[in-house]
Every structure is written in structure tokens, then in C-alpha cells.
């Protein structure tokens, strides 16, 4: 392990999954996991396996849905895609994160 990697705060993984699906369109589990790792620049401590519980949670909330498809290498794979409710949820979460981040930033600047 080259550098220390940050733990993922609870709920952030859900946001990453939604955002990634929004940006990339339908993806399978491995693709999602790799994509999230790449985007975070390997700075996050994410077990690839941990996206599967997250996917189940998101699907039971009705924010994503799945479909069986075939990968580039002709493998049967489960593809996940954002639903309309998921898109709305993403907007809400992004907004809430930006607000939180702004407040934290403000607080840090103001503090002596």
C-alpha cells in the first residue's frame, strides 16, 4: 500500500454510484467499482465488494434498476441503470453535499 487511503463516509458510496451511473450510463458491478476507484484517483479505501450491498439498497429504494446483458467480452453481466426517481435523488444528494461542503469550508476559514 503506497499511501494511506481515506475511509468512505457512510452514504457517500451511494452518491458515487448514482453519479457514476448518471455520467456513464448503464454499467455492470465490476465496471462501476473500477470507475469509482479511477475517479477517486485511488485515494479512497473501497472494497469493490461493498458496492453490492449499496446496489441492493439503491434498487430497493427504486433509484436504480437492473437488466441482464452481455459485456464487451461476451460475458453475461448484470447492468445497472439510473431510474427517474434515482436522477431526482441524485440531484437532491448533490445539492445537500454542496451545501454541507460550503458550510464546512466557511467554518474552517472563519476559525482562527
Amino acid at each position, binding site marked *: 500500500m503506497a499511501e494511506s487511503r481515506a475511509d468512505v463516509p457512510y452514504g457517500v458510496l451511494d452518491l458515487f454510484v448514482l453519479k457514476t451511473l448518471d455520467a456513464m450510463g448503464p454499467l*455492470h*458491478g*465490476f*465496471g462501476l*467499482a*473500477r470507475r469509482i476507484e479511477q475517479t477517486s484517483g485511488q485515494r479512497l479505501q473501497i*472494497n*469493490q*465488494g*461493498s458496492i*453490492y*450491498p*449499496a446496489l*441492493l*439498497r439503491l*434498487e*430497493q*429504494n*427504486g433509484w436504480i434498476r437492473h437488466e441482464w446483458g452481455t*459485456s464487451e*467480452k461476451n*460475458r*453475461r*453481466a*448484470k447492468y445497472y441503470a439510473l431510474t427517474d426517481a434515482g436522477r431526482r435523488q441524485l440531484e437532491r444528494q448533490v445539492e445537500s453535499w454542496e451545501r454541507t461542503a460550503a458550510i464546512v469550508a466557511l467554518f474552517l476559514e472563519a476559525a482562527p
Partner: protein
Amino acid sequence: MILRRWLTSARTRLRGAAAEHELDDELRTHLEMAVEENLARGMSEREARRTAHRDLGGVTAVKEARRQADSLYWLDTLLQDLRYGARVLRRSPRFTVAVVLVLGLGVGMTTAVFAIVDSVLLNAVPFAEAHRLVELHRFGPTGGGPSQPAAMVESWRDERTLFDGVEAYVRVERVFTGGGEPETMQGARISPGLLPLLGVAPELGRAFALDEAADAVAIVSHSTWLTRFGGDADIVGRPLRFTDGALTIVGVMPASFRFPDAYTVFWEPLDVGRRAASGDAGGHRVSVVARLGRDVTFEQADARAAALAPQWNPEWFSTGYTTRLRSLNQLAGLGVDGQFAWVQQRRAALFLLFGLAACVLLIACANAANLFLSQALSRTREFAIRAAAGAGRLRLCRQLLTEAVLVSALAGLLGLAFAGWLVGLADAAVPPEFGRGVLNPIDVDGRVVSWAAVAALLAGVAATLAPALRTVGRDLMQPMQGSASDPARGHGRLRGGLVAVQNALAVVLLIGTLLMGRALWTLLDVDLGWTAENAVALEPRLAGPRYEGVEARSRFLAQLADLTAAVPGVELAAPAEQVPSFASMISFGRLDTDDADIAQAVVTTNYVPNRYFAAAGIPILEGRGFDADAAAADAALVSRDLADRLWPPGAAVGQRFRMPGLAALNDGDWLTVVGVAGSVHTNAFGGAERPDPYEIYLPWASRGGLWRQPRFVLVRTAEGADPIGLLKEQVWRLDPALPVTVHAMDDVVAAAFAQPRFLTTLLAAFALLAVLLAGAGLYAVVAYETSARTQEIGVRVALGATRGAVIRQVLSRSLLHSATGAALGLLGAAALTRLLAPLLNATTATNSATFAAAAAFLLAAGAAGAWLPARRAARTDPMAALRAE
């Protein structure tokens, strides 16, 4: 939202193994893709595979994490806990049966008592928003009753700010001819809006339509439907036949519906308008029920009604009379005229019963807690292993709680069954004095079931809480390190305390029962002054124009007496105005003799022929009967009590007395005593507050007073004869359409004692259960303590202690527990007897012999419970005990 999550989850679950496979496939694909990528990066085949697995984090772990992420995960753990709990309970069946039995009996008893208390006190009016239901009474300086001129119903209906609805009813009695023999049926004519006003609807058919007020239609009660129409589903449209015409049945009310009282078995429409047009001063009377408006308080409506009524109808509401409201809650059940002492007594008795039932439940809880405690101790190792395997304290607690809930559920079911049986007994034993009362039948209804569920759950959780906290709160690893410390030490005080509490409560119950039993015994021991065995009273329903007036009724009853006297098996038959043990016409007034007077005498007058005394078994103690003066207008017999009250011993015959202004007694003219009859105790249960009235007998053939109303023929039958069928036929020989009731007098007398007997039986059952539980609890504790002390006892025996010494030591320890409890219990009982005092009548409440007996009984039960373990301890083989170390 949450529901949709569960639904999605449930849908996945229904696919079961297929969904599980899907995850396997998904993860396999994931790994294959990762391996491929790693190979492409130049790793070796083995390294690529290892890295892929490491990055994923392990297939099993992912699957577990996913299971936990599922929205129905809690259900999984719950089912797991339940399965595990059921297995634990099955593994120790004796423990399970004991706990379920103990808690079930406790829950059953409280539930049964709750069913009574709920019907009679808490929910006496089982209609929607019953607190807004009122009756409009005519009230004056000397009291009042539920009557209003029919015309005023319309006026009240116009007061929309006061009432949301105003309806009326009148009671009716008709002779039903649709069955085998003519039979009186109590019914009510109700304005069509009454059922909707009460918020009830028929279970079959329909309610009355608003324009149906004048039609010949009827709704019948559930019991009538079952007993008279065999529960026929096509009853709607069938006729309900009476001597004075038939009504077409349009509906059946549910079994729980009782209005205006429990005896009403059919309803027909009341035409308020037509009733208002007949009679004077605003039409014939009706009873009026109203629902208060939402924005009006009872007091406001009451004051307004009192102000309005005399303005509308000054003729009816004259000289201080007006309309007052009475809430239905106050009128029904034991709310009836709350100022009467006996109502308050009954109410106190019920609450007391409830408290005692709660005592039994507490004892049961303490007992179950002890059982759980010993069970938990023997499971210490199991919990340690589970904790070592990674189960958190919370999870262990939840496991114990789940077991408690399982036990509670079983106990609740058992309790409900037990309560159902008890309630059946109670319903038969509830005395008729509850009267118009009990609009809410005493049965296991929804409220009672919820009560049982809550009681069982609370009891189960209370019983497991202490052991659960003790077990889980300990250092769970300790038992794994061997048996160096005594696990029982920490529990000793708790267990001893629980036993003491049980014993204390048991003593309280025992003393209560003994006192009630003594009171009942005193009651049953009272010489009634007449002979109820082999006596039968015939009561034909003499209604209608044919039986108007004293002459017609007297003639009929005399004829009937002659006919019945000729029936085989009948020794004697006499017509009578009253017979003992029936609510009698009682008169109050000043009673004068030549030398003395009673300012406020309570008397009952009975017009009888001479043979009545023989038929009733009442002895003539002085003078003679009515033989010689059968028609003398001024001859009278008085009861022993009255003679003793008025004249010196033996001097009554020949004296004269009168009650001025009492029409029932010869219009107040002087009467001459021709004999003294034995006093009859009609009111043995009434206690000092309701003394027996003095009896005054007048000749059957004399002219009779204004209020005279002959009702009975009293028949004395031969020993072993059962001529009841033949007796009824004699009535129908005279009038085939006449309904007749046959009262077996010993049953009537027994019914008068139904309530004290019921209370005592119930209390005895409570006490017996309490003592059993306390004894069993002591046994469990002593058995556990002695087994934990096997080594110590072994050493003692090795050092030369005799068997007797060991037994003495164990017994004295157990006696310490029960004696502490008994002492506490005696204190509690002293307080209890003060509450019981009104129910105990003659017996002196604080009775040291009773107290001593109860304490001795309990100590004996404790000694019996401790005896087995003590003997077992005495047999301890010192070598075996020491070798175990």
C-alpha cells in the same frame, strides 16, 4: 417508501434460490473481469486471481454484507431468533411447560376479572363515543325517571346546538306464540333513528327505514335468532308471531347489542308523531335518548334542558319538576344511581377482585422470573460461547427477549382459553341486581383479547428482564475460565426476595379468601324461616283485559291452585300475593298500636289463604291461622320480628295495630292480630343496611287494598316428584295463550347467594393458585441453593453432621424466606381487610385466628416445598461431593 422497499425485497425473496444464484453469477463475472484486467496488466495467473479476490473483499463477506443491506434483514434475524428460541424452549420442555402454565394461569385470571370489570364498569356502554349519550329524565324534588311526553321529542330535536340527535323508545312486553308454548318476550319500540344514533347496525338484514315508523316490522336479537329461528340465514321476511299479531322480521342484531337492557330480545318501530297526538299533556310518555353536540358540555346541556322543559310543557313539568340529563354511562352497569350503598359495595368488590387478580399475576411473574433465573444460570456457558463467537450483548439480550415473547405468546393463548372458561362461569353467576345494567355482555371481546395480549407480554418481559440483565451484564468470559466462583451468589438475594414477595402476596390472598369464605358460610347458615326445598312457585303472566282488576286475577289464581292441588305429586297448593325470596312490594310508614308506634316501619303485605303457611313451610308460632276468619276484613297475622318489636312476649294475639294512610294495608284501618308467624329472611344478603321488612299477612278472601296484585300459586311437591310439566298444563287448561314461569324455589334461593358464592370461589381459586405458586417457588429456590451447596454439606457430613442436622439447616433457611414473606403479608392483609369490610357483613374483619391460620398454612406449604430438597441434601455422599472439586 419503506413499504415499497419491503415489497421489492419480498419479491426477490420469493424467487429464493434463483436470486441467490443471480448474486453468485454476478460476483463470478466480477472476478473474471478483474482477473482478465490483472492479466492484461502483466500479473501471473495466480497473482491475478489473488488480487481480484483481495480487491473484492471475499465472496462470503460480500454476500453477508448484502444480506444485511436488505430492507427485510430484521425479519431474517427475528426469524432466526424465533427459531433458536423455539429450539431452546423445546430442549427443556419441563421448564417451558412450567413457565407457560404459571404465566398462563396468572394471565387467565386477570383477564377473566378484566372482562367483568370492563363490561360492568369501564366500558359499560359499548357504543361509539358513549360519553356523549344521555337520557332525558323528568326530575323533581323526590327524584325522577326516564319519561318525557312524546311531543317534546320534536322540540328537543330542534335544539340542534344541544343535541346531534334525539330519539325515543318505549319498552313492550308481548306473548310469543311462534314456539312450543306461549312465552313472554321483552322488547322495545324504538324510533327508526335510534340504532344509527347509537352507532350500531344489524348483523343480518337491515335497520328500520325512517319512513317505516308505522309498519309491522321487527328486528330480533342474536339469541332469539338462534333459539327461535335455528340461526336460519333466510330469517329476513319471516314472521315474528305474537298473540296480538305478527311482525315481519327485517334484521338481526349482533350478539353484543343490548338496549335498553339485557332482557330485550326484539325491537319494533316507534311512531313518535302518532304517540304525541294521543293522550294529554303532550302525548304518551316515551324514554328519550340523545347524543350531545360536540361543542356542548354535559353541564351546559343539562342546565339548558332544565330551563327549556317547563317553558314548553308547564302542564307536565309543574311544581318543581323539570328535565335533567343522565349520562348513559352513569345509568348502565355499576354506574346505576351511584349513591346507593350496594352499588358502591359492588364497585369496591370488583376493583378489589381486580387488585387480587393482579396479585396472582405478580406472584406468577415472580415465580416465572425465578424459573428463568435458574434457566439462565444453567445457560451461562452457552451465552459465553455465543459471545465468544461474536454475538454482541444487544444480540444476546434480544435473543432472551425473543424467548420471553415466545413464552408470553403461549401463556397469552393459554390465559385466553382459561379466561374464556372462567368468563362463562362468571356470566352465569353475575347477579340480576346488575339489572338493566350490563349493556356490554360479559364475554371475551376485542378489548379483553387486547388486555390478555398486553398482560401476557408485560408479564413475560417482566419475568425475563431481571435474569436477562443479570446474565448479559456479567462478565461473559468468566464461566469459560472454570468453576472457581459460585455463580449463584449474586442471584441469591434476588431469588430470596422474589420468594418473599410471593409468600407475602399469597398470605394476603389466603386471608382474603378465608374471610370471604367465613362470611359466605355465615350467610348460608342463616335459617331462612321457610322451606325452599320441594317448593315451586307458578307465575302466570296475567296481562290483558281478561285479567284486569284484583277480582279477576284472584279468581284465576284460586282456580289454578285448585287444579294444581289435584296434580299427582303435589301435596299442597296455595294462591299468594307474594312468595319469599322474590323482590316484594315493600311499604314504608308509621305503624301504631294502642301503646306504641314505629315512626318508619318497613313492611310487606301478603294476602294469603290459610294453607299458604303449610305450603311455604312457615310455622304459626302463636294463635291460629286464618281458618275461622277467612273473610274477616280486620284479621291479620304478623311475623315474629314485628310481634317482638311491638308487644311483650306472648301477648301479641288479640292486639290491634294500623298504618295510617297505607292503602295496601286495609286503607289504614285498625287490624287485629289473630296469630304470629315465623319471620322469613328474604334478604339474608342485604346486611345491616337493608334489614328484612316486617311481614303482615291478610286473609286471601278479604276485600284487599288498592295496590293488591296477586301473582303466584305456591306449590309444595312430594319428595322426589317432578310435576313441572303437568303444572304448566293446568295453566293452559284455564287459558291456552297464557305464558307461565315456573320458579323452583331452591334455585331462587341459591341465586340470591350467587354473587357472594362467586366472589368467594374466585378468591379461593386465586388463593389456592397463589399458595401453590409460592410453594413451588420456594421449592425451586431451596433445591437450587442446596445443589449449589453440595460441597459444603458434604464437608459437614464428613465432619459428622447427622441427617437430621442437615435437614434442619436447609428447612430453617427456607423458613426464613417464607416467614419474611408471611410477616409482610400479614401487614398487607390488615390493610386489605379494611377494604373487604363492607363485603364481610357479619364477620369481624380483623380476626386473629384467621390470620394465624393463613400464616401457618403458608409456612406449612413452604416447609413442604423445602422438604424434598432438604432430604436430598441429607443423603449427600461426602466422598462424591468432595471428589467433584
